[in-house]
């Protein structure tokens, strides 16, 4: 064994910041934080169905923005999570190419799930969605004509009455469903918090939760298109 190798092994910086297991664990933890946000975000958004012409959701939005310190802490934390999540997945993705420079003429990957094999596709789709979503509803840049500061309900309804926009949101939520289907199971394996006893629960739980997230989020653009949610 080379002395350089020995030096790396006893180096604290390596074992905490450079080991693939730690990078992957950061992907898992940031993924979990983002998922936690999504649960809260969905619960808040479902107030679109309150049938009160937006009184509840507009008041809720106002409440969220009432303490700028909390709002900005949450925003910075989430953007930090998005950044770290992507930063480390890009590193691990590069390693994938480096680790097998020459591929197979024939390769059978039929034992793994579709969603697990497409994480490097569903993830980037989510990134594009997040950018668009922020430009759209947070900053009001993407669809300026229909953006009304402080009037969440109106802005969302007018936005989603355009089939192209609601269609892309529903499609994006489908990618979210794919990503979480593997991600929510993978987290426990990555962090070592699993056993044969809990694995079926973690796997099935991830499948159920990812579908619930899809149905929950997609119901809003679908509800506007169907006229259930209207001005």
């Amino acid at each position: 064994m080379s002395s350089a190798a020995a030096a790396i092994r006893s180096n604290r910086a390596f074992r905490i910041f450079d080991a693939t297991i730690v990078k992957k664990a950061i992907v898992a933890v940031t993924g979990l934080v983002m998922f936690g946000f999504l649960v809260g975000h969905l619960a808040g958004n479902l107030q679109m169905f309150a049938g009160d012409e937006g009184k509840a959701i507009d008041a809720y939005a106002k409440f969220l923005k009432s303490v700028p310190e909390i709002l900005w802490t949450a925003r910075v934390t989430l953007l930090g999570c998005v950044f770290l999540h992507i930063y480390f997945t890009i590193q691990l993705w590069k390693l994938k190419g480096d680790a097998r420079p020459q591929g197979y003429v024939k390769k059978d990957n039929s034992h793994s799930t579709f969603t697990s094999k497409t994480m490097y596709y569903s993830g980037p789709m989510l990134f594009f969605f997040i950018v668009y979503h922020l430009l759209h509803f947070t900053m009001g840049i993407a669809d300026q004509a229909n953006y009304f500061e402080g009037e969440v309900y109106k802005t969302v309804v007018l936005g989603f009455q355009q089939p192209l926009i609601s269609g892309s949101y529903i499609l994006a939520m489908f990618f979210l469903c794919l990503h979480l289907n593997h991600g929510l199971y993978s987290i426990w394996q990555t962090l070592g918090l699993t056993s044969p006893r809990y694995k079926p629960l973690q796997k099935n739980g991830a499948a159920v939760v990812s579908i619930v997230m899809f149905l929950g989020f997609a119901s809003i653009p679908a509800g506007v298109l169907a006229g259930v949610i209207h001005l």
Partner: protein
Amino acid sequence: MNLKLNVWRQKNRTDKGRMETYQANNVNPDMSFLEMLDVVNEDLIASGKDPIAFEHDCREGICGSCGFVVNGVAHGPEPETTMCQLHMRHFKDGDELFLEPWRAKAFPVIKDLIVDRSAFDRIIAAGGYVSANTGSAPDGNALQIPKENADRAMDAAACIGCGACVAACPNASAALFTGAKISHLGLLPQGQAERSRRALRMVAQFNEELFGSCTNIGECEAVCPKGISIEVIARMNRDYLAAALTDRGAKKSAGGEA
């Protein structure tokens, strides 16, 4: 039965290599896959050609030497079966087979279907051992080991280091192998003394060999000839994460190594 074989031929480490096609005729269904290749090679030698190089030793499924990819599956179509134990009755007359070596940067091809798996040896050397006193054998039950732990350690110890997990992994990760070695020792009382440093060192070596990063896909456990489950990967992750945060480092521990 008659088979068409497309085989990866590569003269040496630097040769570019290519697929070549051979005909295997009158194959006896009771032959093992390696015996079938032996017969093909007899013909190649008789006609003055270079025989197909493949690694083998025990031919009993216990040494881990044999192994290549058949139609995209490491060790071929039968679960929990090494190439040397795979019999030709699992194939049909007229089948076309693609034989390729394990593909990973850390496993360079030496010749044809043979790869250099010394990266695994270096991972073992980095920490896959326990320090034990020599001398007379200890009393049978002096050291208590829960039955469940003994069983799980035994399951992990079944790893023969063949490399199929790396070959099958879309990330070319050696997580199943390293996890099996870490679990096998870490589940037993004799393995506790070095447990934390073992995880740190074996994983550091694993990274240094440029194996990929596991994405919990599970192709590895599907091809493992010993049926080792990815549970060992979760255990490796747990041991490593705990060790990375709690190990005090070499300098401060009494009698620690440099």
